[in-house]
C-alpha cells in the first residue's frame, strides 16, 4: 500500500483529554495522512471515540472536559484561542456509530449543511452529487422529497449520513464504528464506499473489527488505556507488530 508521502492533514501533539478527573486520552502523538485511511483500533473503553471526537471538537459539548497538548489541522491548532469549533467541524465531518439522520426528508438531510454554510451554487446538483458519492443515489432518487431519513433501512441511513457529511466537502471524514449497527451486506457496501472516498478525502475510522481495519485502512493506530501503543502502515501493524501488547490484541489474546 501507499507509503508515507503525503503531509499530515491532522496531527496530535502530546494530546491529553480528561473527563473531570478521569484521563481518557494520554499524551497521544499521531499523524493522519492526506487522502489516506487511518484506522484506530483497541479494546473497548481505551479512548478511541474520545480521540476521534477530539478531532472536530465534539467533546466540547460534554461538561467537565479538559484538554492538554495540541491537535493541528494543516498546521493550525484547533484548540487554540480564537478558533471557532464551528469552522473546525465544517472542515472535519463525522459519521457516527448509529446512523443518526435528521427527522426530515432525504433531500433536506443532505442540504442542511450546505444551507447553513451559505452555499451559493446549485443546491439540487450538489445534493445529488453527494448522494452519488455515497452510493445512495439510485436507491433514493425517486423519493428525495417524499421519504424521511427514518424511512430508510439501517445501511441506507448510514450512507445518507455519509452523503450529508460529504455534501459540505470536508477535508477529513471521521467515522466512529460506522458499521457496527449494520448487517454484513450493508457493511460490505460501506467498506467499498470508504475505499472510494479516500480518493478525494482523508478518512479516520474507529473500528472494533480488526478484519475491517486490515481490509480498508492504509494506516493503523492501536490504543490501550488511553495511550497510543503503536502506529504504522496497516500491513506492518498486522503482520509485524512492534509492541507485544499489539500482538496480543490482534491475535485475539485479549480485548
Amino acid at each position, binding site marked *: 500500500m501507499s507509503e508515507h508521502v503525503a503531509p499530515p492533514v491532522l496531527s496530535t501533539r502530546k494530546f491529553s483529554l480528561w473527563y473531570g478527573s478521569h484521563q481518557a486520552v494520554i499524551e497521544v502523538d499521531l499523524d493522519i495522512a492526506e487522502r489516506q485511511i487511518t484506522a484506530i483500533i483497541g479494546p473497548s473503553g481505551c479512548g478511541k471515540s474520545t480521540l476521534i471526537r477530539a478531532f472536530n471538537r465534539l467533546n466540547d459539548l460534554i461538561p467537565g472536559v479538559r484538554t492538554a497538548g495540541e491537535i493541528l*489541522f*494543516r498546521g*493550525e491548532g*484547533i484548540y487554540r484561542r*480564537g*478558533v*471557532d469549533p*464551528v*469552522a*473546525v467541524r*465544517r*472542515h472535519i465531518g463525522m459519521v457516527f456509530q448509529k446512523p443518526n439522520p435528521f427527522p426530515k426528508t432525504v433531500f433536506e438531510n443532505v442540504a442542511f449543511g*450546505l444551507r*447553513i*454554510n*451559505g*452555499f*451559493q*451554487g446549485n443546491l439540487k446538483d450538489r445534493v445529488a452529487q453527494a448522494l452519488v458519492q455515497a452510493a445512495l443515489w439510485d436507491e433514493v432518487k425517486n423519493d428525495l422529497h417524499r421519504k424521511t431519513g427514518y424511512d430508510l433501512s439501517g445501511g441506507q441511513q448510514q450512507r445518507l449520513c455519509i452523503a450529508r457529511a460529504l455534501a*459540505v*466537502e470536508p*477535508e477529513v471524514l471521521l467515522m466512529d464504528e460506522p458499521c457496527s449497527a449494520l448487517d454484513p451486506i450493508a457493511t460490505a457496501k460501506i467498506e467499498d464506499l470508504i475505499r472510494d472516498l479516500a480518493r478525494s478525502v482523508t478518512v479516520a475510522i474507529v473500528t472494533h473489527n480488526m478484519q475491517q481495519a486490515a481490509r480498508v485502512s492504509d494506516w493503523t493506530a492501536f490504543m490501550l488505556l488511553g495511550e497510543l501503543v503503536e502506529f504504522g502502515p496497516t500491513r506492518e501493524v498486522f503482520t509485524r507488530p512492534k509492541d507485544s501488547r499489539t500482538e496480543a490484541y490482534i491475535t485475539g489474546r485479549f480485548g
Partner: protein
Amino acid sequence: MVLTPHSLGRAARGRSRRERLATVGLTTAGLLAVVITFTIIALFIQGSVPFLRKVPLGEFLGGTRWAPIHEPASYGILPLVGATVVTTGIALAVAVPLGLLAAVFLSAYAPSSVRRVLKPALELLAGVPTVVYGFFALRFVTPLLQGFIPALGFWNGLSAGLVMGIMIVPYMASLSEDVLYAVPRSLWEGAYALGATRFETVVRVVIPAALSGIGAAFILALTRAVGETMIVALAAGRTPTWPPDPTKPLLTLTTAIVNIATGDHEATAFIWAAVFAIGLLLFLVTLALNTVSYLVIQRYREKYA
C-alpha cells in the same frame, strides 16, 4: 469551491452575529428566574419595612388578635398561622395516606395497562381548578358535614381542609408514584429473589429506598396546602379566630391577603404593608420548603440515575 475557503477563524459574519444574539437572548431568558425571585424578595422586604417599623416583630409573630382595620388596630398573626396550620393539617391527614397508598398501588400492584390509564387520569384530576373544589366544599361538603356536626358553621376550616386534602391526593399520588417508579427494578428483583412477598418488598425495600423522595413529595404537598387560596376563601370564611377551631370560620394567611387586597383600600394605606409582611412570611416559608424538597429530589435522582 463555492463554500468559504478553509480557515479556522470565525464563521461568516452574519452567522456569528446571529449566534451571539441567540446566546445573549437565551441567557437573558435563563436569568429571568433569578431576576423575578430577587424582585419578589426586594419588593416584599421593602414593602414590609414600614410595617415592621410600626409593629414590633414580637407583637406581629406572637399576637393573637388580627384586626388591621379596627381602632385600635392589632396585628397579631397567630390566628392566621393557626388557621393555616389547621386547614393544612386536615388536608395532609387526608392527602398523604391516600396519595401514598394510591401511588404504591399504581407502582407495585396495578397491571401496566391500568397504570397507563390511571396515571394520566390522576394528572388530569390534579389539574381541576381549585375554585371548583372551593365551590364543592361550600355547597356540598359543609351541608353534608352539618348532618353529623350540628355546630359546624356555614364557613369552617374542617370542610375546607378536607376538600383541600381531596384535591391534593392526585398531586401527592402522582409525585410519589414517580419516586417509587424510579427505584431500580434490580432492587425489587433482589428482594423477590430472597423470597420476599410483594408486600414485604414494597414495605421493607422499596419504600425505605424511596423515603427521601417521598419526603420531598410530602413537602411539595405541604407547600401546596399552605399556599392554597381559593378553597379557603370560599369555604373557610374570612374571620380571624383564636384559638383556631376547625368548626368555626377561619382566616388563613392567604385569605388575609385576599381580604385586604380586595378590600378597596387606598394604595397608600398602611394596611398594604401588612399584605407585604404576610406575603414575605409565606414566601420565605415556601422558599425554604421548596428548596429543601428540590435538593432532596435532585439527590434522589442522582442516586438512581
